């Protein structure tokens, strides 16, 4: 990995010479569209990217921007974690086509994470509810003051409270309800406390719920408990090729803190994997009873339930589709369907890793956007770092040092990849420049 990243840096330096050229983002996605060149920033917005790619900051300084949605004309909705001046959703426009946002309005007096544009509606979530706003032909919100409340009464106990969301093509919306617990201990995050069995969190959280996208005031009883055993999902996306939901789980924390006799600090930094799951109705991904060991490639019994780092368990639980290093906090997932990027990226997965906080005394990890190539709905190669450098030049010892942390992902109509940062509220736009 280290060697890799050094080579990577060299490659970036080698290509830095062309970093101020123009990207042709009209692209084959919009046949006949005039090719509007977007000027990338001279320093590629501070990012390290594969050869041929460039980046610009579409806008900076918005605050804690969580997820992001881009309309069919390239305009942007972002969700703020807390409302600023009474506005929890920002609408960003680039009126002269240079790629930089020059007009900003806001609405929605609630904070949250989820935001998604599908057809004639904008969907947005607080930490307990989901709203939708009717869009006009330009995908502008018709009335910002009177959204329909489609889902209400979801649990928020100040832990894993983000209600991120995505939609399928059959009028259903999928909402993550994260566990209000690390590993379902009798006393949460308390050394030696054992796990509750059965874990009572699972009835109303730690899973994905499916609701109707067009029905008002639904709550638990109205929805389908679609998938369970998922500790916390922030990044999720509907895979159009497979017609299936894919989710990224945040794995459990603090194996060493809680069970110091069973796990060393180093093991605790490296366990468990952050997992991508392809879920079906009825999937159980195993939390809190198991975690996934990325080196052994096995589902391990959690120490709260009698595990010792050796015992395996959870035979009926789903296996991950991809297992990533521990604690990197995948906050955004996007299957790329655009045509601007080279063939290799088509239908593959981009994942925004927010970056770890509980790997100390090791350096923290993540703070980058990763790519996994897919063929026929399955990974067809190893994951690789696609965009790095969000956190700044040095290693991150503690997450407060990170200048930016990738959180949300969205694809523009021209195939550009947008990344939101929830430290400073930078919206990055990554484009492919080489023809």
């Amino acid at each position: 990995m280290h060697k890799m990243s050094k080579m990577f840096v060299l490659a970036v330096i080698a290509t830095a010479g062309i970093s101020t050229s123009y990207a042709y983002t009209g692209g084959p996605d919009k046949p006949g569209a005039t090719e509007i060149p977007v000027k990338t920033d001279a320093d590629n917005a501070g990012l390290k990217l594969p050869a041929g790619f460039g980046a610009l900051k579409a806008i900076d300084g918005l605050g804690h921007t969580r997820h992001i949605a881009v309309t069919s004309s390239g305009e942007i909705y972002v969700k703020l974690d807390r409302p600023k001046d009474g506005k929890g959703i920002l609408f960003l426009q680039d009126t002269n086509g240079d790629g930089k946002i020059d007009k900003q309005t806001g609405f929605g007096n609630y904070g949250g994470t989820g935001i998604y544009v599908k057809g004639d509606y904008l969907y947005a979530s607080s930490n307990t509810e989901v709203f939708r706003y009717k869009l006009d032909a330009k995908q502008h919100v018709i009335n910002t003051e009177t959204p329909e409340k489609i889902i209400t009464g979801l649990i928020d106990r100040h832990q894993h409270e983000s209600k991120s969301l995505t939609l399928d093509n059959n009028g259903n919306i999928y909402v993550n309800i994260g566990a209000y617990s690390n590993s379902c201990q009798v006393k949460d995050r308390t050394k030696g406390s054992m796990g509750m069995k059965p874990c009572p969190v699972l009835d109303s959280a730690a899973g994905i719920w499916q609701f109707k996208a067009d029905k008002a005031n639904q709550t638990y009883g109205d929805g389908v408990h679609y998938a369970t055993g998922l500790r916390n999902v922030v990044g999720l996306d509907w895979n159009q090729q497979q017609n299936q939901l894919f989710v990224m789980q945040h794995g459990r924390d603090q194996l060493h803190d809680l069970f110091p006799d069973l796990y060393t600090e180093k093991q605790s930094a490296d366990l468990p994997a952050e997992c991508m799951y392809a879920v079906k109705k009825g999937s159980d991904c195993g939390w809190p009873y198991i975690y996934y060991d990325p080196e052994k490639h096995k589902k391990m019994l959690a120490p709260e339930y009698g595990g010792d780092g050796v015992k395996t368990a959870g035979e009926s639980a789903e296996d991950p589709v991809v297992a990533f290093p521990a604690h990197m906090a995948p906050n955004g997932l996007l299957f790329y369907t655009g045509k601007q990027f080279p063939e290799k990226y088509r239908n593959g997965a981009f994942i925004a890793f927010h970056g770890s906080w509980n790997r100390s005394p090791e350096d923290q990890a993540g703070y980058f956007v990763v790519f996994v190539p897919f063929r026929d709905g399955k990974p067809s190669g190893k994951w690789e770092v696609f965009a790095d450098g969000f956190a700044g030049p040095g290693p991150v010892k503690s997450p407060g040092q990170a200048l930016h942390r990738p959180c949300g992902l969205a694809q523009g109509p021209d195939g550009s990849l947008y990344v939101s940062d929830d430290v400073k509220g930078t919206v990055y736009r990554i484009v492919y420049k080489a023809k």
Partner: protein
Amino acid sequence: MKKILMAGMMVVMALSAAAQVKKQAPAGTTASIARGKVLYKQICATCHQADATGVPRMNPPLIKTKYVLGDKTKLIKVLLLGLNEDVEIEGEYYSNPMPSQATLKDEEIADVLTFVRNSFGNKAPAITPGQVKAVRATIK
């Protein structure tokens, strides 16, 4: 190389910090701070981080906050009872439950709080085991 340099710098910083403490604090407090430092690393550092800067949006910093420098009873209660509310520090919000540390002995809570109150740029009077004991008695 960088790491060695960093480590060296940290040693120098730690030494000068210790020297300062020696100049200002009575011997009992110095010993309490030293014990508290070990406890901090073991128990608190995962969440609040080694440099006490915390984790954005989740775990609050322990640097010059109204909790750390403020009323001792309230501070002791944060450790004995844990905390689960929206914590606001300098316009930033933190939301995650802090687990109760009530299994720690009175001496340990006094030590770790005295360490925190005299590190990371904080300066506040020591907390004694007697004070912890008195607060514990009110919540049993």
